[in-house]
């Protein structure tokens, strides 16, 4: 059935190309008057007549087959092995603020551990009154909470420090996702074990082959960290740490330890590999910042963008994008179409939640000339995005992490879009 549909559409495209001679562009469905009747309207289509599949043909529903290109993608040359690697969320194809579970970018250090919830244990040890072991069933008997949070890898946009590199917001900004987590508060778990007064740090550890660890200060652990077992209403996906992961709102994604199996309380940080060799920010003078946990205020225009060119020609045009900040809510996003000469405050749409993605729109009439699109977000604590040059001036080009600079997309007169830097 679907197959027929596709064939039909191809046939139609061919026909209309022949009729309109549209010179290889896809500017078909524009408002210009039609000379010949549209066969999609005048002819009875297969799907108008034949029955589709019944209920239960897909016990777990999947996206329409026409959305087959909306997938996570990787950049193979970035890392040596797919089991310690990363792929990217297709931001250019998403709407609203929620990332569907199957499209949340992945970052693993030892592949995707497959752990049966019955075999999973969570231990709390170290500077506590009672070291404890929980099963997943025990965990679900603590009070449960649901919260929306973005998770951004500290290396998101990291390839762009030395200059424009990757052509597509999926690749430049796609190491972020935003879902509703359900789980229990870390502070409730810690209270059950009883943290000793000398306990100032928490070390979460994963059960996968990388045994991921990070040091988290106790204030943060008690403030808003969660131990989550569900995302967007269903169990965590295996690649997001099923059966349970840590949620560290607003802080770099590497700290959100997946397959969480242990929480140790200590009086000092551990300085493990992911907070020394990695996730430290090397600055121009050869010295490095450590413990740069908070994800800075940031935004990106997701459409138009290199993977989402303008196909409709001049006239009414919608610019949309995402903004977020590890410090709280987004106060406002400004959009420029002339490379930062003039700015227009965009319309924030949908829920505005702390440490969650925000959706913005700017609608305008495009005259068909070239555009330099930029967005600049300001959060509720007045943190603001800088230009790439301003950020490089302060931090050099070797930071890898925490690049929250303003992104520029060049829209050409034919509607194609490229990742550029400008004067």
């Amino acid at each position, binding site marked *: 059935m679907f197959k027929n549909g596709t064939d039909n559409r191809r046939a139609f495209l061919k026909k209309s190309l022949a009729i309109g001679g549209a010179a290889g562009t896809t500017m078909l469905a524009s408002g210009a008057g039609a000379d010949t009747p549209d066969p999609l309207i005048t002819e009875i289509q297969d799907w108008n007549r034949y029955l589709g599949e019944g209920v239960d043909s897909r*016990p777990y529903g*999947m996206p329409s087959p026409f959305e*087959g*290109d909306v997938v996570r993608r990787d*950049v193979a*040359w970035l890392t*040596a*092995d797919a089991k310690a690697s990363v792929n990217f969320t297709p931001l250019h194809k998403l709407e609203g603020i929620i990332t569907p579970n199957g499209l949340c970018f992945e970052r693993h250090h030892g592949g995707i551990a497959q752990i*049966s919830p019955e075999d999973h244990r969570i*231990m709390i*040890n170290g500077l506590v*009154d009672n*070291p*404890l*072991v929980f099963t997943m069933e*025990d965990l679900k*008997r*603590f009070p449960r909470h649901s919260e929306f949070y973005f998770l951004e890898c500290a290396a998101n946009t990291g390839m762009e420090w030395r*200059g*424009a*590199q*990757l*052509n597509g917001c*999926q690749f430049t900004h796609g190491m972020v996702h935003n879902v509703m987590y359900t789980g229990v508060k870390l502070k409730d778990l810690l209270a*059950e074990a*009883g943290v000793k007064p000398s306990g100032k740090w928490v070390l979460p550890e994963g059960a996968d*082959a*990388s*045994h991921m*660890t990070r040091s988290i200060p106790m204030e943060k652990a008690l403030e808003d960290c969660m131990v989550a077992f569900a995302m967007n209403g269903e169990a965590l996906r295996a690649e997001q740490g099923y059966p349970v992961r840590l949620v560290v709102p607003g802080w770099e994604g590497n700290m959100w330890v997946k397959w969480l199996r242990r929480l*140790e309380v*200590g009086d*000092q940080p*551990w*300085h493990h590999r992911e907070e*020394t*060799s990695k996730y430290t920010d*090397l600055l121009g*003078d050869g010295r*490095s*910042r*450590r413990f740069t*946990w908070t994800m*800075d205020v940031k935004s990106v225009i997701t459409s138009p963008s*290199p*993977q989402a060119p303008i196909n409709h020609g001049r006239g009414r045009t919608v610019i949309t994008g995402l903004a977020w900040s590890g410090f709280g809510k987004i106060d406002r996003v*400004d959009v420029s179409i002339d*490379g930062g000469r003039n*700015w227009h405050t965009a319309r924030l749409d949908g829920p505005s939640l702390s440490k969650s993605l925000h959706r913005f729109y700017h609608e305008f009439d495009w005259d068909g000339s070239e555009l330099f699109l930029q967005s600049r977000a300001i959060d509720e*604590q*007045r*943190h*603001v995005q800088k230009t790439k040059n*301003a950020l490089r001036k*302060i931090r050099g080009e*070797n930071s890898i992490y925490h690049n929250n600079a303003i992104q520029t997309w*060049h829209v050409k007169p034919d509607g194609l879009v*490229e*990742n550029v*830097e400008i004067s």
Partner: protein
Amino acid sequence: MSDNKLVVGVFAIVLCISHNAFADAEKGRAVFAQCAGCHMVGEGAQARFGPALNNMVGQPAAGVAGYDYSQAFKQLSKDGLVWSDAELDAFLKAPMQYASGTKMAYPGLSAEEDRKNVIAYLATFTATDQPAEQVVDRKETENTIEQSNQSRPLARDAILPEHGVLHLGRIALPEEIAAWDIDVRPDGMGLPEGSGSVETGGELYDAQCAVCHGVFGEGEGRWPILAGGHDTLEDERPEKTIGSYWPYLSTVYDYVHRAMPFGNARSLSHDDVYAITAYLLYLNDIVDEDFQLSRSNFLSVRLPNEDNFYFDDRENEENYVLSAEPCMTDCIEGQARVTRRARVLDVTPDGD
């Protein structure tokens, strides 16, 4: 639960007579977890979204009576396809390419080993020697056990622990804590008893690490580099290694012990890790070839870059927080001109 163990025993015997000596049916069983959402195997297996997969290997394709195969699969059957190991391998590698139009909406198993193992596993469900377990659906078996089990303990008999606020979980035993508490800190906390020499470390390193990290720690291909890079941190392309960048030696011990060798983590003994850590110091010109590292001299070794790290001070950066309203009109003079373009234009794979 004890029934389950028995079944595993029977299953193991079946494995011993498995026909393919190279493939590992027991590993295939783990791979099958990816298939189990759609397929059942074993006695009493029924169709789910996909057909039951008993008697597959060596049998005609689309042969399960009563299962409604896709047109694509009906065609394979008409063409007389038989599921040999090789055909199954090709199919499982990329199902949707192998049989365009198949209902098996599954991307495939890219690792050859996984395919071989899962095929070996399927082969254990042929004709006579089927294990008596309905392996796939642990949940379902459990439910039936639970329903038929009259002696389910009564809720009121559950023992409530005394600890904590909500009385949840149980006290961790010392052996359990010892098994999992493997972390090591710069002050030496967590370092176990043990020692190892540069010499032994070199042997271990050459055998277990050099394939990826290079004989001199220079990194083969894109695998991480572990040695060298001194005085490069201000260069255009800094080389961040244990010797040039890492602040603490304890991190080397901790990380190698918890995560390396890649693909066989937690296989090294304490003495092995001391020896390899000593060898990594040697590769970074920090100790001599006759050096021996142990718990007692560990803290005397310092890495050169230790003092060059400081706590996050981003908030002191200029304009990190807005001091005035940002400019809205005529903010920059002249028209925007492109100064740099994306260097990698072809990262977006077309279509699939």
